C-alpha cells in the first residue's frame, strides 16, 4: 500500500483497530522494520528503509502519540525543551535563555501557559496543545539544518478532549501547515477528520481502500470504506435473553469519561459494550466491580434494593458473586512471577486452609484438574504464570473466575493478545456458562468478537449509551458502523436511553 502526503497539507488517516494505522506509525518511528520492497521518500529524497529509531528526528518528523509523552511532574519549560535540554553535551544550561525560547514558542501559537507550571496542573487540552507545540519545535529544529519542511504525526490526539479543546487544537494544526510542514492526522472521529484534513486515506486490513479529497468525502462514504462491505451479514445465533429477569441494574453510573448512564444485564445474557476510544464503555466493568471510584451510580441485584457504587469494593463484589477480568493481564489480573496454582486460586486460597494447614497438595491437584478442563498447555500448576503463552495465561485467569461459578462476569478485552484457537475455547466456555445462567458484561473494541459472543451490544459515544444492537443488527459490520455513526451525534445533547423494560 502506498500514499502521498503533500507539503503543507493535513492528511487524514482512518481505519478500524488492526487496519494498519499503528503499524505505519511504528515503521515511521523506526520501532518496526517493514516488509521488503517498500520505500519512503521525504521531501523528494528517498530514505532507506527500515528506519532506525531516532532517524525520524533527523529527517524532520515528529510524533504526538495519544499519551502525549509529557512528564507530569516536570514543568512546561522542562517538557517543552526536553530534547534541547537533554541532548548534546553543553557545559551548562542557560535557564534564562531557555525560558525565553519557551515563551517565544508558546507565544507564537498564542498559548497562554506559564513555563514554570507543572504539567499535572494543566488541563487535558493544554497538555495536548503543549505536546503539539513541542513536536513543532522539533520539526523546526530539523528544518534549521535540512532547510526543508517537516512532517508531524498526530495519533488520536482528540478522544479525551472536549469540543472547545478540539477547535483550539485544530487552529494550532492549521497554523503549523501554514509554515509549510505537513500533518498526518490519525483518528477514529470521522467528523473531525472531515473538518481538519485536506486529503483522507482509509485503511482496511492493512491495505489502502481509498483516498479522498475532502470535497468529495462524506461521512457515509467514509464509514462504508472503513467498515467494508465484503463480508455479507451472516446468520446469527443470538438468543434474546431480555425476557429473562434482570440480574444487575446499574443506574446513574458515571466515571471519568462515562456520563451518568443506565444499563442492565439479564440472567444468562452476554452483554457487549463498545464504542470508539474514549467513549467511556471501557470503564463500565471496573466501575461495576468497585475497582475504580465512580462519580455516581447505584447498583441493584436481582431486583433487590439498590445500593451506592461507593460502598462497593472488589472484595464485596467477589462475595456477591461478581468476577472481573481486567485487560491489563500482567499488571492487574495475574502475577507472572508466581506459580499457576497460586494465580488460579488467588481469590479463594482460604478454601484450602483446613485443620490449621494449607492443603497445598490438594490445591495443586485441583489446579491440574481445572487446567485440564480449560485446556491449559502445558498443564503443570507448579510452573510460573510467565512460562505460559498469552492465550494460556488468559485461560488460567478465566478458569480462576469460572471455577467460582460467578453470577456476573465482567470482562475487559478478554482476548487481547490471545491467538485465534484459544479465542474459540474462551468463547465456548463463556457461552456454556451463560447458558447455565451466568450474566456476562464484556467491554471490547473488537466488533468481530462482540458479534460472535454477545446477545446484545450497547454502543457508547462521548460517555453515553447511544445505541443498542440486538438480533439481526448484531453483526461485525453493524457494530463497526454503529460506532462510527454514533460518534457523529451532536455533542452535549443528552441521549435518553432506557434499557428494555423489565420487571
Amino acid at each position, binding site marked *: 500500500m502506498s500514499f502521498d502526503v503533500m507539503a503543507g497539507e493535513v492528511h487524514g488517516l482512518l481505519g478500524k483497530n488492526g487496519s494498519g494505522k499503528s503499524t505505519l506509525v511504528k515503521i515511521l518511528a523506526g520501532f518496526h522494520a517493514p516488509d521488503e520492497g517498500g520505500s519512503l521518500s521525504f521531501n523528494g529524497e528517498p530514505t532507506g528503509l527500515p528506519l532506525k529509531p531516532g532517524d525520524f528526528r533527523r529527517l524532520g518528523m515528529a510524533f504526538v502519540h495519544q499519551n502525549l509523552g509529557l512528564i507530569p511532574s516536570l514543568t512546561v519549560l522542562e517538557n517543552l525543551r526536553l530534547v534541547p535540554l537533554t541532548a548534546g553535551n553543553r557545559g551548562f544550561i542557560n535557564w534564562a535563555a531557555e525560558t525565553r525560547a519557551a515563551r517565544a514558542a508558546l507565544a507564537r501559537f498564542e498559548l497562554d501557559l506559564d513555563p514554570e507550571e507543572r504539567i499535572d496542573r494543566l488541563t487535558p487540552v493544554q497538555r495536548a496543545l503543549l505536546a503539539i507545540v513541542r513536536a513543532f519545535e522539533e520539526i523546526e529544529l530539523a528544518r534549521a539544518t535540512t532547510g526543508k519542511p517537516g512532517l508531524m504525526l498526530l495519533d488520536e490526539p482528540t478522544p479525551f478532549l472536549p469540543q472547545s479543546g478540539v477547535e483550539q487544537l485544530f487552529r494550532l494544526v492549521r497554523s503549523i501547515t501554514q509554515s509549510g510542514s505537513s500533518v498526518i492526522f490519525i483518528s477514529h472521529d470521522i467528523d473531525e477528520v472531515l473538518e481538519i484534513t485536506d486529503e483522507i486515506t482509509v485503511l482496511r486490513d492493512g491495505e489502502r481502500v481509498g483516498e479522498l479529497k475532502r470535497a468529495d468525502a462524506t461521512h457515509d462514504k467514509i464509514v462504508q470504506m472503513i467498515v467494508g462491505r465484503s463480508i455479507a451479514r451472516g446468520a446469527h445465533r443470538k438468543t434474546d435473553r431480555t425476557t429473562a429477569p434482570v440480574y444487575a441494574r446499574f443506574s446513574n453510573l458515571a466515571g471519568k469519561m462515562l456520563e451518568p448512564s443506565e444499563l442492565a444485564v439479564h440472567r444468562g445474557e452476554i452483554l457487549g459494550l463498545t464504542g470508539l476510544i474514549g467513549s467511556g464503555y471501557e470503564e463500565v466493568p471496573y466501575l461495576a466491580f468497585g475497582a475504580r471510584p465512580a462519580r455516581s451510580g447505584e447498583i441493584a441485584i436481582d431486583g433487590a434494593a439498590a445500593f451506592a457504587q461507593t460502598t462497593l469494593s*472488589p472484595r464485596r463484589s467477589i462475595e456477591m458473586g461478581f468476577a472481573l477480568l481486567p485487560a491489563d493481564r500482567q499488571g*492487574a489480573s495475574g502475577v507472572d512471577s508466581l506459580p499457576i496454582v497460586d494465580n488460579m486460586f488467588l481469590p479463594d486460597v482460604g478454601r*484450602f486452609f483446613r485443620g490449621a494447614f494449607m492443603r497445598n497438595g490438594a490445591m495443586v491437584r485441583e489446579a491440574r484438574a481445572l487446567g485440564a478442563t480449560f485446556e491449559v498447555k502445558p498443564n503443570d500448576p507448579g510452573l510460573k504464570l510467565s512460562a505460559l503463552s498469552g492465550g494460556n495465561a488468559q485461560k488460567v485467569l478465566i478458569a480462576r473466575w469460572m471455577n467460582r461459578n460467578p453470577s456476573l462476569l465482567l470482562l475487559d478485552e478478554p482476548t487481547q493478545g490471545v491467538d485465534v484457537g484459544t479465542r474459540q475455547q474462551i468463547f465456548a466456555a463463556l457461552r456454556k456458562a451463560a447458558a447455565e445462567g451466568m450474566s456476562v458484561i464484556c467491554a471490547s473494541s473488537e466488533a468481530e468478537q462482540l458479534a460472535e459472543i454477545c446477545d446484545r451490544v450497547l454502543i457508547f459515544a462521548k460517555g453515553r449509551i447511544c445505541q443498542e444492537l440486538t438480533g439481526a443488527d448484531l453483526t461485525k459490520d453493524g457494530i463497526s458502523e454503529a460506532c462510527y455513526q454514533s460518534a457523529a451525534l451532536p455533542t452535549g445533547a443528552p441521549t435518553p436511553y432506557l434499557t428494555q423494560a423489565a420487571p
Partner: protein
Amino acid sequence: MTDATKSDAIKTDASSTRSAGAPVNYRRQFERVALLLVWVLLIATFAAVMPNFLRWGNFSIMFASYAPAALLALAIIIPLTAGDYDLSVGATLTLSASSIAVLNVWQDLPIGLVLVVVLGIGVVVGLVHALFIIYFRVPSLVVTLGSTSLMSGIVQWMTNSTTIGGIDRALINAVVGVRFLGIPLAFYYAIAAAFVLWYVFDYTPLGRRLLFVGRGREVARLNGIAVNRVRVAALVASAVLASAAGILYAGVLGSADPYSGLNYLLPAFAAAFLGATTIQPGRFNPWGTIVAVYFLATGITGLSMLGIPLWVTNVFNGGALILAVTISQITRGREASDIG
C-alpha cells in the same frame, strides 16, 4: 462449572497424579542447596587452616550470639515479601534493648512487665510506620530510614548515651543461661520464630496473600485481598519481631548500649537477600534466611579467629549483600525486583 463436573475432574485426575511428568530439574535442586554446600565448604576451609575451629563450643557461641541477628533478618523478610522495606529494624532492636535496661535497671520495674511493654513498643513502632507508608503513601524506604535516626536519638536521650548493665538475671538465664545440646536457648528462640514464619508463609492463606500483595498489588486488590491490612500487619510483625530481637540482644549481653544494635542492620539485610537464593530460590524464605545468617556468621567468626582486623567484617557484610542481591536477580531470570 458445576460442582458435579468439578469433582469429576478431580476423580479422573487422581489416577494420573504427576501425569505432567515434568523431569526433575537438577539445576533447580542444586540451587536450593547451593548455599548450604558453600557453607560446608567454608567450614571445611577454616577447619583445615585452624583445627580448633571445629570445636562445638565455638559453634554454640556463634549460634547464640547471632540469634538476635537471625531474628532481625526474619523480621525484615515479612515486609519485604509484602513489597515494603523496613530499614529501621536495627534501631527498633536498640530501642527495645535500651528500654529493657532503662525500665528494669533504672526504674526497677519487674522484668516480665518490661518485656510486655517492650513488645508493645514494637507494635507502636510498626503502626507509626504503617501510618506514614500506607495512609500518607510515603515510600517505605524514606519512612524507615527517618525513623531509624529518630529512634536512635530517643535511645541516646533515654540512656544518656551510656551503656547500662545489670539487667535481671532471669532474662539472661532464659536467653543464654540454659543450654540444650550445649547451645544456649537464644538460638532455639530464633529457630522457633523461623518455624512460625515458615508455617505462616507456606501453610496459611495469609502467606499467599502476603506474596501476592508484594508481587502485584493491583492484582491482589482486584482479587479481594485487603491489601492495606496485609501491609500494616507485615510492618507491625516486623517491628514486633525486631523488638523481640532486642530482648534476645539484651539477654545475650546482659546490658544495653545505645549504638551497637545498629550494626546488625546490614548483615540482616544481607542474610534476607542471600536467603532468597536458597531453599526456596526466588522468594524470601525463613529457612533460607537462617542458613544465610549463620553462613555469614561463620565467615566473620572464622576470619576474626584468623586474626584478620575488624574492618574486614564490614567489607564481608557489605560485599555479601551486593553479591546476594546479584545472585538472586540472576536466579530469577533478571526479573524486576519486587520491592520499590
